[in-house]
């Protein structure tokens, strides 16, 4: 016996399988962790440029220049100026820069003046400062040998940027004709309108100050090292500047406590507007100088405008104004609305992917002349559901395209009525508590959709439409007519379009509101003049059965409102009834990655179906072919075992070399000590184990696992196997049912009689004793009276009378031309049961033949005598005795060689030697013991 822990054998197969598994795992991890290939070199440099209206104010810009591998004077490449968002630095743009550099562009990123790393002040993209700086950078690019230039020395250069950087792209394109293509994202058209919007079409002097965003904007500029809110303003930068070591604050610029790094004029303007909520013409003029609106008519560079729908800072209307202004020059313009923005962040993955694709397509076409431009002028996405696998439930979107940019008026429109009596609403003193629509920079799209909007009771009036009869895909700016009365003659109101779901309540698409400042109001609502309000631009679907709701409220946390308390009366339309004008657009769905997945699924299903069919066909074919192979010579021999060898995977040889035959009418005993290889041989015989070498033929059929010829064989190997929860009879019936043969062939009664279980056959097998199970198993093996019966240790657990009965049964069984193979480790049993015997030891056959031959008397006898030396002398004198060997203290083994035992005894007695015992030795025992060598340890323990 071996003791101790089971040891694992490292066979070649196991090691190979383990290595394969490890390799696969390793490959997977490597694939996941492998850095993206780096096909560029990045060089940091501090560039000195002359800034200011007169070009005499030196400024140092912190830059990084990314040059793709292989770009040089002989193979120049187009260049991209990549501008960062407000509060960001060149490091915010690193990921985008790498992306573009890998796409084959020379990319220059820089930190705009006034921000961390560069000197100078923030002039809000002033043409005299930031734009002039950027022109100097174009000069610098023009001097680079690796940058592609036309014969006149004009470099091929595109400008890409988001928010602050987007406005710079537009302004630079307006001021520098050398710019060849621009991709401005989530940026403004007119800063004065962005910060002082008014939805009835009044100029910014009458606008409602967007105080919360302005505050965030200003503070992120006055403290350039801050993260947090500035991140929202940094635009499309992937925000990985958090991973980079921060540049220490440069000591070159002195910051003041009120203005930070802002230029004095900008700062003063901000402070004035923020304090009063109103802007003077001079303030507006300053803001307009920093706005693309001033240069749109000069932009000749093809423009890809990407604007966010979840953007209360620079809403879709800003991109629309840019698009119309630039397209008026005949310049190619493409507009994309994605589901994100200053409020919504980068949006779903599909939207960021589309933005990246559009950007590269645009640049490739206009800078390299490679590929086509998008065949539509307008693309947009709309939220159509939620991502369910991630924990934060991001929305998922579907993308659509429209051939011509429809503007904000839609390609069609419809009208939905809202009605309601005029209502009185209260403007609280100081403007608090205030309704909430968005939180600047929350950057969480899902919270915007599930609705953070909050109305204060008593401060708003709602006007509902009847349920919609059909689904409406609204794209653009809805309009509504309202009227108001105020005792002060003036009112600031916020008009919102809610989507009211009958089951889950109202939601405000992207939290967008239309601020309105009404002046010259009557105190009596009956005399009020209706005004038309242009609601925020949206791309939204309103489901059938929902209602639309116009809400007019007096406060909003994002805006400056009159501090004086007042009660306004508000109503809709002329006669308490107004139509909401809804611009409609039906876009063509854009095939996305998802379409690809769907094809993949279809392909997978088809492959599986075909694969399954092929496997089934091949299996059937193979089985059909296997049935044909019969060796005629042995067609009538129940069993032929030839050269059988079984070696296990771990190298252990259970059966070394076994040959024997079982003929009809024979009961063959397979005799050997435990572990001699008997059971392994029987396993091969049952098709449970594949032999390493040699073969087993049953009625001439070569035996393979599941060979049909096994149906002519009944077996009990290694103990019974029954379903414990069923009775004996149920087990036999179910077993026979599994064979698929007719019940009549089973001979169930005969089998039961042999089992001799009586009424116990109705009890559950679980309750049986070992012997009862054994008998049931023998009965199961005999079901259908198979031509070859194979029984492994059949008498195990049986009583002596039952054993005797079993012997009789087996001998009778073989009589009708059937054959029985019985394995046993008991000599007596084989001797009494079998006609033939095969003796196995250590996996080999040591003797075989008829039992009568082997068991019959042998010429050898064992004597026990009183005087061994004397007996030896006597025996030696007998001529007929062939050999004499001592066996123990008083024993002698004598080969009599034909001399009768009586003669030998009389000779011994005659010589005065006392004989205690004479025992004839039989051949089988002889063979067994001499061959086994007295060492009957199992071969498994060799």
């Amino acid at each position, binding site marked *: 016996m071996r003791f101790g822990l089971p040891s694992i054998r490292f066979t070649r197969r196991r090691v190979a399988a383990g290595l394969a598994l490890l390799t696969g795992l390793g490959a997977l991890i490597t694939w996941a962790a492998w850095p993206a290939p780096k096909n560029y070199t990045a060089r940091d440099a501090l560039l000195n440029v002359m800034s200011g209206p007169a070009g005499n104010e030196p400024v140092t810009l912190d830059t990084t220049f990314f040059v793709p591998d292989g770009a040089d004077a002989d193979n120049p490449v187009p260049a991209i100026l990549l501008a960062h968002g407000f509060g960001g630095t060149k490091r915010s743009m690193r990921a985008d820069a790498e992306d573009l550099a890998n796409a084959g562009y020379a990319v220059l990123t820089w930190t705009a003046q006034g921000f961390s790393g560069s000197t100078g002040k923030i002039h809000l993209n002033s043409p005299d400062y930031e734009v002039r700086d950027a022109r100097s950078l174009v000069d610098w690019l023009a001097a680079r040998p690796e940058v592609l230039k036309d014969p006149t020395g004009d470099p091929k250069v595109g400008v890409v940027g988001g928010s602050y950087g987007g406005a710079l792209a537009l302004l630079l394109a307006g001021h520098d004709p050398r710019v060849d293509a621009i991709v401005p994202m989530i940026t403004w058209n007119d800063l004065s309108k962005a910060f002082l919007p008014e939805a009835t079409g009044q100029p910014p002097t009458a606008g409602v100050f967007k105080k919360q965003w302005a505050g965030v904007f200003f503070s992120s500029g006055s403290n350039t090292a801050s993260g947090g809110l500035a991140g929202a303003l940094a635009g499309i930068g992937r925000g990985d500047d958090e991973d980079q070591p921060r540049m220490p604050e440069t000591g070159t610029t002195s910051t003041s406590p009120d203005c930070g790094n802002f230029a004095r004029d900008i700062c003063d303007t901000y402070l004035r507007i923020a304090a009063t909520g109103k802007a003077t013409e001079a303030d507006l003029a300053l803001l307009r100088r920093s706005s693309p609106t001033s240069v749109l008519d000069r932009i000749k560079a093809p423009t890809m405008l990407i604007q966010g729908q979840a953007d209360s800072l620079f809403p879709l209307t800003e991109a629309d104004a840019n698009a119309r202004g630039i397209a008026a020059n005949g310049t190619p313009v493409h507009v994309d609305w994605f589901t994100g923005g200053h409020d919504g962040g980068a949006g779903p993955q599909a939207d960021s992917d589309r933005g990246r694709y559009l950007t590269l397509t645009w640049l490739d076409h206009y800078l390299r002349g490679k590929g086509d431009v998008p065949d539509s002028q307008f693309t947009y996405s709309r939220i159509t559901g939620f991502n369910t*696998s991630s924990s934060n439930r991001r929305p998922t979107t579907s993308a659509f395209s429209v051939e011509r940019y429809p503007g904000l008026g839609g390609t069609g429109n419809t009208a939905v009525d809202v009605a309601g009596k005029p209502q009185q609403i209260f403007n609280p003193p100081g403007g608090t508590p205030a309704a909430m629509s968005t939180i600047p920079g929350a950057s969480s799209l899902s919270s915007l959709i599930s609705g953070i909007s909050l109305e204060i009771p008593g401060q708003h009036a709602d006007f509902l439409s009847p349920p919609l009869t059909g689904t409406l895909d609204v794209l653009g700016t809805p309009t509504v007519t309202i009227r108001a009365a105020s005792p002060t003659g003036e009112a600031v109101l916020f008009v919102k379009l809610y989507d009211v779901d009958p*089951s889950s309540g109202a939601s405000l698409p992207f939290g967008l509101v239309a601020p309105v400042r009404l002046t010259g109001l009557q105190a009596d609502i009956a005399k009020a003049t209706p005004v038309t309000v242009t609601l925020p631009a949206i791309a939204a679907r309103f489901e059938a059965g929902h209602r639309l709701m116009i809400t007019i409220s007096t406060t909003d946390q994002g805006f400056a409102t009159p501090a004086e308390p007042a009660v306004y009366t508000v109503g809709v339309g002329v006669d308490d009834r107004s139509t909401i004008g809804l611009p409609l657009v039906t876009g063509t769905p854009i095939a996305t990655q998802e379409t690809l997945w769907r094809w993949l699924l279809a392909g997978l299903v088809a492959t599986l179906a075909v694969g399954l069919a092929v496997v089934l066909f091949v299996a059937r074919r193979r089985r059909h072919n296997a049935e044909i192979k019969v060796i005629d010579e042995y067609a009538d021999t129940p069993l032929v075992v030839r050269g059988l060898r079984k070696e296990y995977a771990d190298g252990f040889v259970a059966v070394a070399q076994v040959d024997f035959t079982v003929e009809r009418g024979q009961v063959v005993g397979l005799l050997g000590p435990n572990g001699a290889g008997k059971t392994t041989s029987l396993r091969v015989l049952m098709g449970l184990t594949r032999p390493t070498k040699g073969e087993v033929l049953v009625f001439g059929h070569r035996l393979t696992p*599941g060979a049909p010829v096994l149906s002519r064989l009944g077996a009990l190997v290694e103990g019974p196997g029954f379903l414990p929860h069923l009775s004996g009879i149920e087990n036999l019936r179910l077993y026979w049912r599994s064979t698929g043969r007719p019940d009549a062939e089973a001979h169930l009664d005969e089998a039961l009689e042999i089992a001799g279980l009586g009424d116990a056959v109705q009890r559950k097998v679980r309750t049986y004793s070992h012997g009862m199970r054994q008998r049931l198993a023998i009965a199961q093996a005999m079901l259908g009276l198979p031509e070859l019966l194979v029984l492994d240790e059949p008498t195990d657990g049986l009583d002596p009378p039952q054993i005797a009965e079993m012997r009789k049964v087996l001998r009778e069984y073989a009589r009708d031309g059937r054959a029985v193979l019985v394995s046993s480790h008991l000599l007596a049993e084989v001797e009494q049961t079998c006609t033939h015997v095969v003796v196995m030891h250590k996996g080999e056959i040591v003797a075989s033949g008829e039992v009568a031959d082997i068991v019959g008397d042998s010429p050898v006898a064992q004597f026990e005598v009183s005087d061994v030396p004397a007996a030896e002398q006597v025996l030696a004198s007998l001529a007929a005795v062939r050999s004499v060997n001592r066996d123990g203290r008083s024993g002698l083994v004598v080969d009599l060689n034909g001399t009768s035992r009586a003669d030998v005894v009389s000779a011994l007695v005659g010589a005065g030697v006392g004989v205690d015992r004479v025992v004839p030795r039989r051949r089988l025992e002889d063979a067994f013991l001499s061959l086994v060598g007295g060492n009957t340890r199992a071969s498994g323990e060799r």
Partner: protein
Amino acid sequence: MNTFTVGTELRRQASRPRTRFALAFMVILPLIVLGAFELGGDGDDDNGPGAFGSLVSLATAGGLNFSLFVLLVSMSFLLVVVVALFHGDTVASEANWGSLRYLLAIPVPRGRLLGVKLIVALLYSGFAILLLVGTALVAGTLRYGWHPLRSTIADELSAGEGLLRLMGAVGYISIMLLIVASLAFLLSVLTDAPLGAVGGAVVLQILSSILDQITALGALRNLLPTHYANAWLGFLGTPVQTDELVRGTIVALAMSTTLFAIAFYRFTRKDITS
């Protein structure tokens, strides 16, 4: 003459107490949940935001919502265990009893034996899921009425449409359960211990759920068998959100086919030593 038919195996498995137990529990569970709602009265527990919270609070809105709720509470563990039981136990228990070698010596070709076992395990698993949802639907409708399917994700769905969506969700969940089924089936072929096969499959499923919580794994999580487990919520949207359903189905089919194939490959070649 066909040995070992699906009918025989169905009968063999039907005779087993654990099969009857599992199926009975599929009927009892919805009734227990229903009883809990009845006894509990108006609990004002905060179930948190999100789709699940809303499905819990809407559970008593009608028969459809109730079935959806029962599906929700049972899919992540109960159904996993039941499916693992039907698939993990089927071959390993035969090996454990010793009856496997007698089936093979009948002879039932190994491919056929495994094929029949797989078909029967799949049938019982499908039947268990249908029994669960069917009971919930009947009991829920009798108690709460036949009302439209409600959710906070999207619009209310008319009862007929809702029933179709529910069936869709059941179908998708069944496909996702193929992964645990194939894993249990493979383990069942590899081991003689039925508990090992069932437990192993369940433990790996739990491990996958835990790994899925670790966002640092990034895109690798998409390969986890449980990553798309909740994509059936897409059936509640209007229109149906198919993106993740498609990906989840691809992952489930690819993974389960591979595991089933390994199981067949192993079983048709290995030496039966039990």
